[in-house]
């Protein structure tokens, strides 16, 4: 079954840098016609879908069926996505396979991911695949940085509304016959000083409303990547990559309470080394070994007399954490007989979180042993059976061996023993690679362990909960894909159903937040997608999500409600015209039904349609100019209780020069 590949425009002049030397990527080679190896829940988004279109990572992902985005403001603001009704905190977010999800347990902020550094985005909606550990309730999203594969490079510059500017530079070149070098640098900035209606927090007093400009919302990030890819004498490949990112921005506060100096700063570094083998036993076995190390440091600061957030003292408050993660891993892909294929992975994850800034000293460690695998057998030409699963053993460690709840209510001599988790999924695929009609049915049981900070962390205004249990999910999917004759049109539809248990929610009592396992939910829905290129001048994409999400928690307040941020219906349509004289015009429209931002279903966000358009021009083979308009109808409505204003219509001009 073909994965869905999202590439809204066919103009890829810049990406087609001539490969004078291609060191290649190791992939399992199949006989194609006999075995159907692709996951039906997999979607791949390539750079052409976002370049020049002023889309954030969350914006882009939410164009896919089944994915909803949450966005707190402009460039760099906190942004997340949910997948098929599963909350953002349960979605595994990776860069080059290394998880960004950290010890805090919160959702990964997609706002700080610069797509200009990315080659593609891999989206797994059904599950976390075996190569990422089959760990977690929701799917996985893997951002893949540009690889040192093809010779070439490019320069990109962009300017847009609210003093948005972006720049990036990438180069990839052979150093020797067996060594490829690639490097990239990217930066983004926006003042985010858009206008909004300030209702002053008084919904029954319109006399004090006024038009305000967003203050202290500026954002800047810088990222760089260096990669070496070497072909060894024995045919093995080595890849060494170092990536570093720094971002900082103002924390502008809520609509009626704009801050002056509050800000956040994040720094991260990732070092990866991977060794890929040649194919053994007539390419029946490939081996891979890798070591990744990641450092993240996130800090926030504020000064109450100016910002009016935090406690009411005169001290400049700076608080945050640093997390370290080291992941050695080994995996093998094998195909011992013609109809059987699979992979197995063993990984050890060591994670440490420490206080930074003014926070009280604390340090937490987690050791995580994960074994995972995937096995698929083609029973006969049109039917195959598969299964994937994982075993996970956790061991947490408390700094100095003792943990005291911030309220003094509890003392632990050591971290609690946690049960081993076994997650798994069975699936069956129908059709052959060349079949016009293919399908997949799967059912799985998944777990997600509480994060370190949820168990033992210390936050101002919150207390952790050492008794938290694993979150659980049972998920079912059935997909079908039909390729119309002529291969210009394909249609894919998926039914999905998820039962969530023991979901972690932060609950208030005596003015303190605490995470507890209270959420239960049932999510059912259908996704549909039609991709068609009826002529060489036109590409059309139609997508729809129809779903029902239901809070089933044991609470009179929430039971029976829709899940927050989940509309019943969501439609997306995009058309791209390939015009004469190297022009391309693209128009995309999105509509969603009403939804609620909160579990109580009181904060209603009405149905809304948004539109965007872009025009690109390729005057030369490797030159591309683009002009994009987002949110054409300037939709800025927010429920009164949605405190963060969003930008309205935005423009962006981009130029890309390849070489």
């Amino acid at each position, binding site marked *: 079954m073909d994965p869905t590949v999202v590439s809204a425009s066919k103009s890829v002049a810049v990406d087609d840098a001539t490969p004078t030397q291609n060191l290649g990527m190791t992939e399992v080679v199949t006989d194609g016609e006999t075995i159907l190896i692709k996951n039906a829940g997999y979607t791949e988004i390539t750079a052409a879908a976002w370049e020049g279109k002023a889309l954030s990572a969350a914006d882009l992902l939410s164009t896919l069926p089944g994915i909803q985005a949450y966005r707190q403001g402009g460039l760099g603001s906190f942004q997340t996505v949910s997948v098929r009704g599963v909350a953002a905190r349960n979605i595994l977010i990776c860069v080059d396979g290394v998880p960004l999800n950290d010890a805090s347990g919160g959702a990964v902020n997609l706002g700080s991911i610069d797509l200009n550094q990315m080659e593609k985005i891999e989206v797994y909606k059904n599950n976390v695949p075996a190569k990422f550990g089959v760990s977690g309730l929701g799917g996985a999203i893997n951002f893949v940085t540009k690889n040192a594969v093809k010779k070439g490079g490019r320069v990109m510059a962009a300017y847009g509304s609210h003093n948005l500017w972006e720049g990036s530079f990438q180069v990839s070149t052979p150093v020797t016959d067996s060594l490829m070098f690639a490097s990239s640098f990217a930066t983004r900035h926006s003042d985010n000083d858009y206008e909004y209606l300030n209702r*002053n*927090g*008084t*919904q*029954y*007093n319109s006399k004090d409303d006024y038009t305000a400009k967003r203050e202290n919302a500026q954002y800047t990030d810088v990222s760089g990547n260096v990669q070496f890819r070497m072909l060894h004498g024995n045919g093995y490949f080595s890849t060494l990559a170092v990536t570093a990112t720094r971002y900082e921005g103002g924390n502008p506060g809520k609509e*009626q*309470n704009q801050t002056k100096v509050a800000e956040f700063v994040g720094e991260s570094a990732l070092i990866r080394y991977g060794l890929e083998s040649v194919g053994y036993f007539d390419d029946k076995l490939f081996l891979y070994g890798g070591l990744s190390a990641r450092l993240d440091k996130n800090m926030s600061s504020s000064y109450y*007399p100016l910002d*009016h957030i935090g*406690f*009411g*003292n*005169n*001290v*400049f*408050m*700076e*608080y945050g954490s640093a997390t370290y993660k080291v992941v050695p891993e080994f995996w093998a892909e094998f195909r011992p007989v013609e109809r059987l294929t699979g992979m197995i992975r063993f990984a050890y994850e060591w994670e440490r979180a420490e206080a930074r800034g*003014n*926070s*009280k000293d604390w340090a937490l460690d987690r050791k995580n042993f994960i074994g995972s695998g995937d096995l698929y057998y083609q029973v006969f030409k049109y039917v195959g059976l598969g299964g994937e699963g994982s075993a996970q053993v956790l061991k947490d460690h408390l700094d100095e061996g003792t943990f005291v*709840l*911030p*309220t*003094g*209510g*509890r003392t632990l001599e050591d971290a609690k023993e946690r049960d081993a988790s076994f997650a798994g999924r069975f699936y069956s695929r129908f059709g052959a690679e060349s079949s016009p009609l293919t399908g997949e049915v799967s059912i799985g049981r998944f777990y997600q362990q509480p994060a370190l900070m949820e168990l033992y962390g210390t936050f*101002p*205004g919150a*207390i952790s909960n050492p008794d938290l249990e694993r979150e659980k999910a049972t998920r079912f999917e059935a997909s079908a894909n039909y390729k119309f004759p002529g291969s210009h049109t394909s249609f894919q539809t998926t039914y999905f159903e998820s039962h969530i248990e023991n979901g972690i*929610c*932060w*609950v*208030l*009592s*005596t*003015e*303190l*937040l*605490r995470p507890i396992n*209270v959420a239960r939910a049932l999510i059912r829905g259908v996704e549909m997608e039609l991709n068609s290129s009826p002529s060489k001048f036109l590409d059309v994409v139609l997508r729809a999500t129809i779903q029902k999400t239901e809070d089933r*928690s*044991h*609470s*009179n*307040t*929430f039971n029976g*409600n829709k899940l*927050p941020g989940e509309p019943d219906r969501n439609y997306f349509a995009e058309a791209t015209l390939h015009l004469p004289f190297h022009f391309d015009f693209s128009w995309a429209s999105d509509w969603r039904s009403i939804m609620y931002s*909160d*579990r*109580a*279903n*009181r*904060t209603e966000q009405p149905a809304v349609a948004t539109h965007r358009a872009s025009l690109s021009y390729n005057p030369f083979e490797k030159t591309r100019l683009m002009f994009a308009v987002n949110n054409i109808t300037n939709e800025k409505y927010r429920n*009164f*209780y*949605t*405190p963060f204003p969003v930008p309205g219509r935005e423009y962006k001009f981009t130029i890309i020069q390849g070489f």
Partner: protein
Amino acid sequence: MNKIKKQSLAALAAAGLAFGLVACGNDSSSSTNVPEEETSAYAGVVFDGGDYQVPEGELRWIDKDGKISEKSLSFYQDSKVVTNGNDVYVLEGLGTDNISKVNPELINDGAEKAVVWQEKFANANPVDMVFDGEKAWVALQNADSLVQISTKDGKVLKSIKTGEFASEGETSPYVADIELAKGVLYALFVRYSADAEYNFTYPRGLVAIYDAETGKLQDTVQLVTNNPTAMSLYKGDLYVASLGEYDGKADDNRGVEKVDLKAKKSELIISGEKLGAGIYGFVAEEETAYAAIYNGWGSTPVVKIDLEKKTFEKVEGIADAQKTMAVKNGVLYVGDHTYGEEKVYVYKDGKLKALEQPKGAQAPYSIALF
């Protein structure tokens, strides 16, 4: 006629909940000089989400049949409701900082008609009001002042600077409660301080006594316990409840103390050691008081205290009352915040009766009787 209309509306309820750590609180009933016959009828309740993702609270009321209203008015979480017997005032907390006057006679017609006025007290965190005719004193917990407003339009008439009572490095002395009686305004200050590492220090609490007409400071009384939460007047003495530190411990740094206003001295009459912990919520009527004991997150059971005899007994059946209590004519209205078991109870003659919680109603947070 006015009373008949109110009876048809029955009790009033309001809603809201706090996000973030606020070191002190107060009771949910305020003193008033409105004649008792005007206040004897019914009660009000506040509801909130209990979940931090619910920014919106709801003001509900208890109908004549004793049921909580299906209708509601929308206010921020962390809202507190107080009443002068005729009108209801909703105090939206830190970060929202509004006071709204609500006309109970129009409450079924929706907020657009029922809200008489809404005024902002930016970054001030109004937490309590006491009434004197068409004027009211407002306790602003995160400001260095108390303000007097007109109940006609919410405009500030005068203010009392309280910054001198703030601990070093703090912008406010953190008023927890105010009371008004016989032309005297009593203000209860926590005076906590937090350092850059979020270490909280609670010095002994302080009561400041002002002339309610002029706002002139008359005297202060140093308390003997830490982190006071609420107070009540009885027979010319002031009874102050205190929480101590947020650690759920039982010691003599918390409990109920009696302030002899003539001698300007205070003594601990029921210690936290006896109660089992400090007091998070506190309301009183004459010699009978009710206190929510802070054992820790999610555990604030209620005890009934005889201030005269200095004795107390547990009110069985309430797990997490927090500050959701109001008492009038010997009847206690109390909310239970326990997740999944959110309810409003009526406690009378030693019996606890649960009110039916409408589908979708949030957890009770604040109650006022009118």
